């Protein structure tokens, strides 16, 4: 077991280092840099010598390997540098955006799982075939709903017309209701679809026919055999979707004016604020590694065959 864990941690560290290095190289390859954009921007009206001075002060012209080692050393000591654009430490920026993102992503994900499971269950158990067909078409509808439009619509109805939930100065829970709804719709769609398709697929497996032949009811077969088998691929997709949620709720954040890593990423790309982007990449890589590790560890819970395999490793 410990070898397994150490191996996984080593792997995670390697992934993180690779993510850091690749992103460092890619970010350096961008045509501009934050210092250039911030100070060259005509808005400040600086002369060429002044800009040269500032570049020198930021050591922006020192050789790349030196900058790389410098940045690695800083990251290892938890110093993520400063956002040139916002004029605050990157760590503060991440901290200001992370909690909201985590809440939004977790609740959005939770709700989308509930919606997906409900849809899949309905599609498998609904009494009429027209109802099943309708339920099965819902994911397609959800996926084609523009998030932006949905967010605005929800705000218009619930906040501006019915005046139930303020968008400005909301309480901590009020702030999450509409964005979580908005997020859950597009995320639940692929989950529901995969769940439905797998249920259909597993239903055609020979062991289901055997169980049926033994006199098991449709409901019992679904619950005992099909659900467990259909959940595994969904779990994998779910892990990826959740990872995306952490940095991907840009539109939702913009519409609701929420802080979040998505918006921060978008703004930092726009301003080519390399220090911020570098930190976000490393953070996102860490989150993905963590989520995938969790998914890997959850697999055996659902599939006893994997449990045996893992036991052999440990």
């Amino acid at each position, binding site marked *: 077991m410990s070898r397994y864990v150490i191996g996984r941690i080593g792997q995670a560290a390697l992934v993180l280092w690779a993510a850091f290095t690749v992103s460092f190289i890619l970010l350096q390859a961008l*045509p501009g840099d934050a210092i*250039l954009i911030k100070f060259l921007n*005509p808005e400040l009206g600086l002369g060429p010598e002044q800009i040269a001075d500032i570049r020198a002060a930021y050591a922006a012209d020192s050789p790349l390997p030196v900058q790389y080692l410098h940045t690695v050393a800083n990251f290892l000591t938890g110093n993520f540098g400063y956002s040139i654009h916002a004029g605050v430490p990157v760590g503060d920026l991440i901290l200001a955006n992370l909690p909201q993102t985590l809440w939004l992503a977790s609740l959005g994900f939770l709700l989308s799982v509930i919606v997906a499971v409900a849809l899949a269950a309905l599609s498998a158990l609904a009494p009429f075939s027209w109802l099943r067909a309708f339920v099965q078409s819902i994911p397609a509808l959800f996926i084609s709903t523009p998030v932006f439009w949905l967010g605005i619509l929800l705000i218009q109805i619930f906040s501006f017309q019915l005046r139930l939930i303020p968008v400005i100065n909301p309480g901590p829970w009020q702030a999450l209701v509409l964005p979580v709804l908005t997020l859950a719709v597009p995320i639940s769609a692929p989950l529901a679809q995969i769940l439905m398709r797998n249920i259909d697929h597993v239903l055609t497996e020979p062991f289901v026919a055997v169980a049926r032949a033994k006199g098991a009811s449709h409901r019992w077969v679904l619950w005992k055999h099909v659900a467990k088998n259909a959940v595994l691929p969904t779990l994998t997709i779910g892990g990826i979707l959740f990872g995306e949620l952490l940095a991907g709720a840009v539109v939702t954040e913009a519409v609701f*004016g929420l802080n979040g890593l998505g918006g921060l990423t978008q703004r930092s790309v726009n301003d080519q604020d390399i220090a911020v982007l570098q930190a976000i990449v490393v953070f996102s890589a860490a989150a993905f590694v963590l989520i995938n590790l969790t998914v890997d560890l959850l697999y055996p819970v659902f599939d006893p065959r994997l449990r045996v395999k893992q036991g052999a490793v440990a």
Partner: protein
Amino acid sequence: MTLNSRFGTKAGLAALVGATFLTGAALWSAGALAAGAEGAPAKGGTLVYLEQQAHTNLYPPAGGFYPNGGILNQITDKLTYQNPKTLEIEPWIAESWTVNADATEYTFKIRPGVTFSDGTPLDAAAVAKNYDTFGRGNKDLKLPVSEVINNYDRSEVIDPQTVKFTFKKPSPGFLQGTSVIGSGLVSLKTLALPYEALGDATKIIGSGPFVVASETLGRELTLKVRADYKWGPAKLEHQGRAYLDEIKYIVTPEDSVRIGALLAGQADVIRQIQAYDEKQVEDEGYLIYAPSTRGVNNSVVFRPDNPLVADVRVRRGLLHATNTDEIVSTLFSANYPKATSIIAKTASGYVDLSQRLSYDLEKAKALLDEAGWKVGANGRRQKDGQVLELSAYESLPQPQNKETLQLVAQQWEKIGVKLNVLTADSGSAVVNNLDPAKAPVSPAMVGRADPDVIKSQYYPTNRNVLLQKGGNSDKVQAFVDEKLNQLLDRLASEPDRAKRLAVAGDVQNYVVDQAYAIPIFEEPQAFAAAPYVKGVSFEAVGRPSFYNTWLAPRR
């Protein structure tokens, strides 16, 4: 020696003030006066102000960015106050001042008893330190020089309430420069911080009527009133503390959410409202404020270093092919007056050049024909196998800039010239826009209520919008216009007020004559406010001031 000596004759000043007042008494000032007539201001309450974008670095010289200015204007005071109606410079933190005849020495008497919100005195020493930093920058702290201060040499503290500034060359724009957002006075503690720490609003310690109480980075900012504030601009009717208890800035990027929140009573004032939304807001009985930024108009400029637009006849042709009336009436509202020179009517030194900015397709075609660009088989103008195809990058901060450029492109299409309107992330846009080969055409504007603004815009070592050699772009091959630069130099260093305004007129004439710029409209900063928000005012370049603002009971 007082204020007047610098302005030349009293009569000249009076004429100037009269003229600017007549032309400059814009919609909003009338509104502000009317609001004052509605009974006594009520104290207390929180003003909820929706911002479109989060503020960035709050080092005062970076106050030009609209969201930054909207904050700095409440928390910092300036040495002088520029009356937004008359554009006259009035006492504020400086009780009085003297300027020598050639505008190389300025001496200010500082009002006694002023303190920063950290309790330290705002005295001559603090003022000297502020201007040494703004005028020279600080390499160790990476603080850049302020755009509005030209030719700065040094300061001298004569006594605790008197400070003298010396300049290397005449700097007649300096007095006005002491009144702008970018010259907000901050405490020594703030000035000791490196540039990259000044995005944290709580670190910006000013002496203004409001103080930063708390901040959620990128999302929310709360200002609290300073109860002991008693040093507002001397000539303002309102003295003492501000009426509001609190101002809450909430970043709400989405246009429709800001408007919806205002109309649903969740917010009191919103910044940045598009012209096409104005009617909806006014129909509900809410108010639009569109104070002018009084500087160089929203224009399209050429980069003559690019051979395609190096010929003045080509530029003139494109100028006459641009239908400004159509742009203003299609995309904008009455709050966006059509430009009649390269600077706004309300800017000092303005001359009316509307005759020379006419829309005249026949003239445009003739000019391009004359320059050798003939219409080819595909309807495009060609010369020596080259097609007259130009590109411009959209400027995100300017209102409906992409739509404006696209309309210009349609208009130029009529005479066979193609304009590609490009969109890019602001990073690439900044870099590409500094390359005359990639951006032979560019949108441009800048606000400041002093003729120096023209120099800021066109001078190679300032904003350099025409991209002359020796400026902020290393991509320029050869283009330099010595005549223009000499005029701009004179503009920034002519101590005699009347002569200086004459030079301002010469520059406007010259830029239009060379068709370096096609002025489109006078850019305001547009706000909407609930009707119960009274006494909203704006400084001379359209940044809001809430010192005088109060909340009447909601109906």
